[in-house]
């Protein structure tokens, strides 16, 4: 039997850990061997000496702090985010019998579920026994001081344990990163970062995430966005009579226009009927329609187009147009620019030679709506209910035979009312009440060239029976279909 094995067996014998058969065999051997007996006696003396050592007591203040901290942690149950260090401290306290009954029960529940924790408790017990087996020599003061210092710091850097604080340490770490904590909390986090590489790693991760977020590209508001807001506000607030606007060139709403809109606020909308009714009826026939708003003075191109267009009018002939000399507000700029239509839809550009697109751009914009017939009917009902407008199908002006029919109707009315109709269409689309989105785009000369080529615009289309008044505007709606109705 080797010496190590021998000592192990003798130790087990002294501790009463051998089975009866093993015990009998060992006792037989002891009778035969004086050496073995001598070794057993030596072991007995050691055990006796060790068992008579006084217990080394933890300093009262430390024990109290640890106990208080553990109690603070335990009442709500053991938190899942308890750190390994905290758990080890808890298990050590349990192994040394320093927990109260309730806390001990909770720890025991954990022990049932974790072999790792059970192993830790066994380890703590062995350590405790070993400590008790030390000589009675007092611990060197410097060692004791160092030990106490480390214990205090351990408690200090874990506010949740030391102070019973409710905030998890991670939140303090986050706040530390953002420079949102100061004083004692800040010092505690700093101390923890010095001591704990895990905390440093977490902080580093947070810091990199924060830096990453702060460097993703910032999106600026599109240039036209605020203008769109102001336009919406203008149409809503003026029509509701809530505001009196002042001129602002940036939002492209003329002061006279606004004044006229405001003064006309309470007037009847009936005189808008004629042109609008024509527009809406035509809309009902179209899958795609386009509205162009023109200045009161027909542009050279429009005049040119009109002269070339043969007349074919379903509606009764209207009286000659009444030309209003009032300067037109620049409604063109009031409409937000959107993507242009595909050029290949616009036909041959050869005839553009005689047209100056830049002169058109300042006075024409188009709003293109892709609507179903049901959408149009719904829009008409909406207009009727909100604007009290009657629609007269007899005023429809229809284009000549064309592969891409164009319908032209003139609206002659107060700018606020015309604007209201257009905005209402857009609003209905935005609310999803129309089948398709409303798009607004800059006019293209190509489209006008198409109209020109196809002789789609007729002079009669600019005729309207509507009365004029100061501040009224003339709006020419050009309704164009990309497909035959």
């Amino acid at each position, binding site marked *: 039997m080797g010496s190590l094995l021998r000592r192990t067996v003798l130790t087990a014998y002294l501790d009463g850990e051998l089975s009866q058969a093993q015990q009998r065999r060992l006792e037989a051997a002891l009778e035969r061997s004086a050496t073995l007996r001598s070794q057993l006696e030596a072991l007995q003396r050691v055990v006796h000496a060790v068992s008579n050592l006084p217990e080394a007591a933890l300093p009262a203040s430390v024990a109290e702090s640890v106990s208080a901290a553990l109690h603070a942690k335990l009442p709500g149950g053991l938190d899942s985010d308890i750190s390994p260090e905290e758990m080890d401290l808890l298990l050590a306290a349990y192994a040394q019998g320093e927990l109260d009954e309730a806390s001990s029960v909770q720890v025991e529940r954990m022990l049932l579920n974790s072999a790792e924790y059970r192993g830790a408790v066994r380890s703590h017990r062995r350590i405790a026994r070993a400590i008790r087996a030390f000589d009675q020599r007092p611990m060197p003061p410097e060692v004791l001081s160092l030990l106490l210092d480390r214990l205090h710091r351990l408690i200090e850097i874990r506010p949740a344990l030391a102070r019973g604080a409710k905030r998890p340490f*991670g939140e303090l770490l986050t706040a530390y990163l953002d420079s949102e904590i100061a004083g004692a909390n800040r010092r505690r986090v700093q101390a923890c970062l010095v001591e704990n590489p895990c905390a440093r790693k977490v902080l580093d991760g947070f810091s990199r995430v924060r830096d990453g977020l702060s460097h993703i590209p910032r999106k600026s508001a599109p240039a036209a966005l605020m203008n769109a807001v102001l336009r919406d*506000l203008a149409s809503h607030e003026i029509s509701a009579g809530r505001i009196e606007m002042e001129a602002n060139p940036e939002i492209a709403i003329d002061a006279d226009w606004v004044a006229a809109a405001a003064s006309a606020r309470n007037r009847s909308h009936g005189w808008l009927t004629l042109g609008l009714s024509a527009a809406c009826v035509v809309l009902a026939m179209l899958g795609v329609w386009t509205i162009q708003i023109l200045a009161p003075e027909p542009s050279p191109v429009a005049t040119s187009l009109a002269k070339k267009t043969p007349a074919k009018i379903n509606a009764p002939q209207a009286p000659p147009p009444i030309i209003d000399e009032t300067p037109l507000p620049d409604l063109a700029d009031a409409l937000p620019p959107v993507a242009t239509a595909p050029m290949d839809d616009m036909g041959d550009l050869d005839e553009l030679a005689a047209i100056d697109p830049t002169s058109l751009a300042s006075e024409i914009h188009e709003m293109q709506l892709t609507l179903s017939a049901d959408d149009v009917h719904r829009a008409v009902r909406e207009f009727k209910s909100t604007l009290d407008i009657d629609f007269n199908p007899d005023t429809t002006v229809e284009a000549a035979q064309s592969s891409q029919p164009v319908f032209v109707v003139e609206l002659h009315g107060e700018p606020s009312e015309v604007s209201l109709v257009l905005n209402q269409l857009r609003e209905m689309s935005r609310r999803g009440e129309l089948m398709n989105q409303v798009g607004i785009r800059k006019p293209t000369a190509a489209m006008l060239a198409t109209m020109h080529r196809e002789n789609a615009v007729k002079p009669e289309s600019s005729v309207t029976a509507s009365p004029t008044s100061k501040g009224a505007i003339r709006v020419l709606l050009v309704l164009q279909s990309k497909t035959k109705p």
Partner: protein
Amino acid sequence: MQAKEEQLIRDCLSGRLDAFADLIAPYQDRLYNTLYRMVGHSEDAAELFQEAMIRVFRGLRSYQGDSSFYTWLYRIVLNVAFTHRRRRRLRTVSVEALADGGTVDFADEDVSMRPGRTLEIEETRGVIELALAEIPEVYRAVLVLKDIEDLKYEEIAEILDVPIGTVRSRLHRARCEMKNRLQPYLDRGTI
């Protein structure tokens, strides 16, 4: 509140839309960016911006100056964002899947931000944006306000109308969520 802002608000209340433009101008890019980061799409952000600004204009009369003007603005903007039902779903591809070599199809995303239809995983910004879009909205809000807009906890608490402790807690959880999603990139050192 600054005297200039007070005057502009008074002008707005007297019906001057141009004053409203001046009042919003210093904040409009930040507000728009906040909306953009909340909804992840420029068209939606623009639409919500308009809606929010109309609310702001109409609410000016009720603004008492109890909070700073810009926190009041942010509150309205975020309320609009929270109540917004997205017309376009945010991408649901996980960042972890990307880390394994996958790609994301951004076909429905803002083309100005996504020049191509796919985004390679090495594009760190895209990955961060994706992770941001994936985390719950309440966490996203505090992250946007803190890490992108660089507001103080107190201001965020005022905007969201929650205690500072809640801000701290949400921010911590938000960063944990982000960190978990971005862990492969953090490990590689690409973030």
